[in-house]
């Protein structure tokens, strides 16, 4: 299977503190991966590091996406290669509607103008499937959205922008039943054998409705264990303490 993402020996500092300490893993097309770990293990650092957030300094290692070295690429360059990230708490931007934002992003990503009516049909379809309020796409991006509405807007963007790899930050949504439904539904609609999903979470709840290929346990800045979906059950029963020795 085609390898999409490969991370080798990644070291990342945030404000001169080492957060990721030699991290390795790979994601192939057609797969759904989960990274689990307790708070403070480095989950959000990993996502931000993949996406070239300048606050996360890479001191060693390499990230390759679809045969392109993106270790030092900028977020927009990474997005153009086909990587998407759903934010747990996306910022609000006044003055641009969800619809217009998706239109702008899509035209930047594809480097071509977007037909208004085609996009409208596409968005209307997803809005229905995700059980979103119709007017949401006309409202300013995330402005005054509830947590659930933000989640739906992120998933809507993922579906419209149709990346090769979608990274979903679900660090906080472990207990929110509606959020879980939206994410699993979105992933189900999105997933095919050409693309991949990487879900980052600390709770197993989100995974109940998803078919997961690989689970990675992130502890103290390293992947300490990789296994199949059964690892989720193990975490459910034993927590992360059982992996301490593997570090």
């Amino acid at each position, binding site marked *: 299977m085609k390898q999409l993402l490969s991370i080798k020996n990644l070291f990342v500092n945030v404000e001169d503190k080492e957060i990721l300490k030699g991290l390795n893993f790979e994601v192939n097309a057609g797969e759904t991966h989960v990274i689990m770990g307790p708070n403070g293990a480095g989950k959000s650092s990993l996502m931000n590091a993949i996406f070239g957030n300048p606050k996360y300094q890479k001191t060693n290692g390499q990230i390759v996406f679809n045969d392109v070295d993106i270790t030092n690429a900028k977020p927009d360059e990474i997005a153009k290669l086909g990587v998407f990230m759903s934010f747990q708490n996306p910022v609000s931007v006044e003055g*641009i509607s969800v619809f217009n934002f998706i239109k702008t992003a899509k035209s930047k990503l594809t480097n071509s103008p977007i037909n208004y009516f085609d996009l409208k049909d596409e968005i209307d379809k997803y809005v229905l499937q995700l059980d979103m309020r119709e007017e949401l796409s006309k409202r300013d991006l995330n402005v005054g959205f509830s947590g659930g509405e933000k989640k739906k807007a992120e998933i809507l963007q993922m579906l419209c922008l149709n990346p090769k790899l979608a990274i979903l930050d679900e660090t906080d949504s472990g207990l929110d039943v509606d959020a879980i439904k939206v994410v699993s539904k979105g992933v189900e609609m999105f997933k095919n054998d050409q693309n991949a999903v990487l879900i980052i979470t600390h709770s197993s709840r989100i995974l109940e409705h998803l078919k997961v290929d690989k689970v990675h346990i992130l502890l103290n800045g390293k992947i300490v264990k990789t296994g199949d979906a059964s690892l989720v059950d193990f975490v459910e029963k034993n927590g992360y303490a059982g992996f301490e020795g593997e570090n």
Partner: protein
Amino acid sequence: MDRKNKDFSGASKNDLDFLQDNQNFYDFKNADDYEYKIKKGLSKEIVEEISKRKNEPDWLLQIRLKALETYFKLDLPQWGPDLSELDMDNISTYVKPKTESKSSWEDVPEDIKNTFTKLGIPKAEHQYLAGVGAQYDSEVVYHSIKEDMLKRGVIYTDIDTAVKEYPELVKEYFSKCVPLSEHKFISLHYAVFSGGSFVYVPKGVKLEMPLQSYFRLNSPESGQFEHTLIIVDEGASLHFIEGCSAPKYSKVNLHAGCVELFVKDNAEMKFSTIENWSKNMLNLNTKKAIVGNNAKLDWVSGSFGSKISMLYPMSILQGDNSSTEYVGISFAGSGQNLDTGFKVLHIGKNTTSNVVSKSISKSGGVATYRSIVNILPSAINAKCSVNCDGLMLDSISKSDTIPVNKIACNDITFSHEAKVGKISEEAIYYLMTRGLTEQDAKAVIVRGFASPISKSFPLEYAVEMNRLIDLELEEAKND
């Protein structure tokens, strides 16, 4: 690539290289070709010469001379931007273009006509304006109003013509809203004023389409001192749009215009300005309105250009139940100091004022919101709400708010909110993860920040405003 010390605010020049079209749209100049350019400086002889060339009545000359006297007596403002670089000995206060005022573009000389064509004026006139005035340097070169407006008794002409054709009307209102001695630069204005528009909308006449006057200063080392006098009579309504621009020169140019608005009982008026003076311009403009019973006046203001601006439109809410709104945006780039804001005087009962002000600063620019809210004891049940936001695009730029509130009445409602902050790096990052470049991301954020203001402009002008924002953002490349 070393990213360690790089943050989003410190965009490198390479980041912005993709922007091909960095030519400032407004920066094109014609030869300094005039019929008459008065010698530089300021003196009684110069003022008399301007008046004589205009063949003015004596009462107007006396106003000019009195204003000149006041100008010499008054000091420069002791607050705000430093104006010491202004040397009136290097400014020519009157430049007459090689044409009289025409009512058909065909009759306007080619180079001047081309200037206004490039600025989109004839097209806008054709599509959505009820009338257009165009001033080039010190004189109006074109004035025209649609036939049906004339039939309804609307007067829209240049001020020189108004002095001759409607002397009583002009005399009744001229300098009655903005007095000669209010500050040094208004005295200067009255001494050498030339050009500007005169509008009279008769009782009960409501104009569906706006009137627009455009002021273009082409001549280097000169000043523009247009006087706009507008009377919206009882129960009438008008939207007046003002545009200004100039090509850039190495030496200082001066703009000290004056706008006087009389909004009578039950009348409504909106006064919109989009200003993009070149960055060698000192823009020391004065605008004031007197608002009658149950009348409404809205200011919409976009300040983009100039080296220094000092501009604080004022509403005098004289009538009971009168209201005013000020919606303004300023964008200060490298080397610019834009000191703008709003003044309101509540006199009548149940008067209302609303302020929404936004300022953006970038590349070391300084944007200040300065305001005075004055609520007199007579203004029972007055309401005033002020909301101002400053957005700094980097750490070398400045944004400030300096409000003064004088409230002498107990029975009122007043709120003031001010926020000043740097552009959110988190927001830039979020937008970039969706494929927008850093520059695109900033443009989306800045346009969004400005959207409450751009929504107040007619669509065509909102588009122009967004273009001005993009131009300002692009100019980082040339700084």
